[in-house]
């Protein structure tokens, strides 16, 4: 395998958790609710996976538990933002703070313990003879394949079905949707919960592939990068895939340069994804300064029936 193929494989593996979290964020924000708790949700998803996996040695149960816990947290966020009309930014920050503290507290007992396994991989032997494709797609893990499926499903859902129309309507103009008989609150609750589950799955993926052990704060800002990627991808699942892999590539490029004995200190290589996130968002802001950015029109605005503005 040449360098580029290896980098692509690494980009997919590092990009999958980013992709899952970004897709979760897209669902949240398409429904009009800002989700800044991604970092906390990822950590909670990761720590739940670790604890349940070590206790039960059953990967399926572990994944279900992590999705369940993050769904519950998502519903808390939904309750605060939708029913109580609380400040969505603050609720998300609270989620991140609580998630990082609580995950550190829960994970203390299993910190550093190796997990009993990693994600099973799908060995597609019939792809082996194909030169580059075979190397990349012949040996991917199940969550990566799930993320591919999710990208297609969500793309079709959002742009091609009446459910997607309702989702977009709820995010862009909840009052209109309400008049048309769409149940705004129910849809918002649903997508916030599903979005949180996907973000939790992202945390699970991170801990099950990159480093199969729990460390305090192991997401290291990936949740926040995903929040940026939602904007970068302009709330579109297919773009989310490309953007997530671009960042996955940046992430692993730094690591690879370190292995190759680059003269640049590793600390600067690790800064690349963060700095590039800011630069890319600045570029996008500059390019789209006179154009609609694709932001759901009612993002962050609590919907109150019979209230104008």
């Amino acid at each position: 395998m040449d360098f580029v193929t290896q980098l692509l494989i690494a980009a997919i593996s590092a990009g999958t958790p980013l992709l899952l979290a970004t897709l979760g964020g897209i669902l949240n924000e398409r429904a009009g609710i800002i989700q800044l708790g991604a970092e906390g949700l990822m950590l909670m998803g990761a720590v739940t996976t670790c604890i349940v996996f070590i206790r039960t040695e059953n990967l399926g149960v572990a994944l279900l538990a992590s999705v369940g816990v993050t769904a519950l947290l998502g519903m808390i966020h939904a309750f605060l933002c939708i029913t109580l009309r609380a400040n969505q930014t603050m609720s998300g920050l609270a989620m991140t703070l609580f998630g990082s503290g609580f995950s550190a507290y829960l994970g203390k007992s299993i910190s550093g313990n190796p997990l009993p396994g990693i994600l099973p991989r799908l060995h597609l032997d019939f792809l082996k003879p194909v030169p580059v494709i075979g190397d990349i797609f012949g040996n991917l893990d199940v969550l990566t394949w799930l993320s591919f499926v999710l990208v297609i499903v969500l793309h079709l859902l959002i742009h091609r079905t009446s459910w997607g129309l309702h989702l977009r309507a709820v995010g862009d103009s909840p009052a209109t949707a309400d008049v048309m008989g769409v149940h705004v609150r129910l849809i918002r609750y649903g997508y916030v919960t599903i979005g949180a589950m996907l973000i939790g799955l992202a945390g699970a993926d991170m801990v099950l592939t990159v480093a199969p052990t729990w460390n305090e704060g192991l997401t290291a800002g990936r949740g926040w990068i995903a929040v940026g990627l939602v904007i970068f991808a302009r709330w579109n699942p297919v773009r989310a895939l490309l953007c997530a892999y671009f960042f996955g590539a940046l992430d692993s490029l730094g690591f690879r340069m370190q292995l190759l004995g680059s003269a640049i200190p590793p600390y600067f290589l690790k800064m690349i994804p963060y700095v590039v996130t800011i630069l890319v968002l600045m570029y996008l802001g500059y390019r789209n300064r006179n154009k609609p950015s694709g932001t759901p029109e009612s993002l962050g605005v609590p919907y109150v029936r019979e209230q104008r503005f």
Partner: protein
Amino acid sequence: MSQEKASGGALPGPVKQTSGGRLPWRLEYDSSRIRTPWWTPILSVALALLLCAIFIYANGMSPVTVYLKMFKGAFGTSYGITETLVKAIPLLLCGLGIAVAYRISVWNIGAEGQLTVGAMAATAVTVYFPNLPGLWSIVLMLIFGVAAGAFWGLLTAIPKTHFGVNELITSLMLNYVALLALDYVVFGPWKDPKGFNMPGSPVFTDAQSLPVLGATRLHIGLIFALVAVVIYYLMVRFTRWGYELRLIGANPTAARYAGIHIKRHIIIVMLISGGLAGLAGMAEVSGVSHKLMQGISPGYGYTAIIVAWLAKLNPLGLVVTSVLFGGLIVGGFSVQTIGLPSSISEMLQGAILFFLIAGDMVTRFRIRRGA
């Protein structure tokens, strides 16, 4: 009411909202109620303690023991109290900076990074000018620390004002960049050659350290912080700038029509916000640790967000909450002696914030008799 509105009342009346249904009572939502009762912060803290007590109990520990231990550690001894105050200094400075930015809805969550670069810049003075006479070291360290923090704040402000980038993402990304830069200097160029290969800068001389109170670790940074609080109060309350801030905070659209330059205000508040966090960083290295090392801040920048929110941006409230949270951090360290992680205090902080924002909204609902 519709008559009044139609007759040209510029301000919409309070929007009363009711839940439908046939219950003997109804829930009414009053969106005009912006001030929350004084007891919501207290109740939020109590409920958060209760929630975390359940988690602690489920984990096989007695919550009473844990909380008593935390309280005694933070406020039970004179050493504990001075330590709590030492921790309250950076919280107060960062919280003040965050409060200034929040006044006009600029969500600076980068105080952690701004504090870190402030500490680095102050240390740079000691590394590159080791033998300055008299007070010059301290003065230069102050200037460098504040300037570096303000610069880091500017890096968040400019993308927001000129490129429309959400300041939450930028300021948080910059936190990670600052922490990586800190790792670089303490492991690399500034590593103490006499430090037994431990990461960290050389220990500061007396001329580079802030004076402390007697035999305690309580340093003069406390005075800086209190003076800053008074200035904040006076500026916001009595100057034109403060009036404009309050106007933008109350109604940004009206402020824009009134000809207030919002972009300029965003840049100014981020400079102040970052500068105060940078000052906190300078005070931490020069007053407490006396050298630059990893983990110079145990999350002060994040805790300060809750401090600012819990205080409702009120100056006196900031002093009270920063002492309370300083105590929470010290208490968090003291439970480590009974084998619990100090992250218990982080968990409490997140829970307090949850209950606080929920409480702010819940108190706007009223139960009324009759359908």
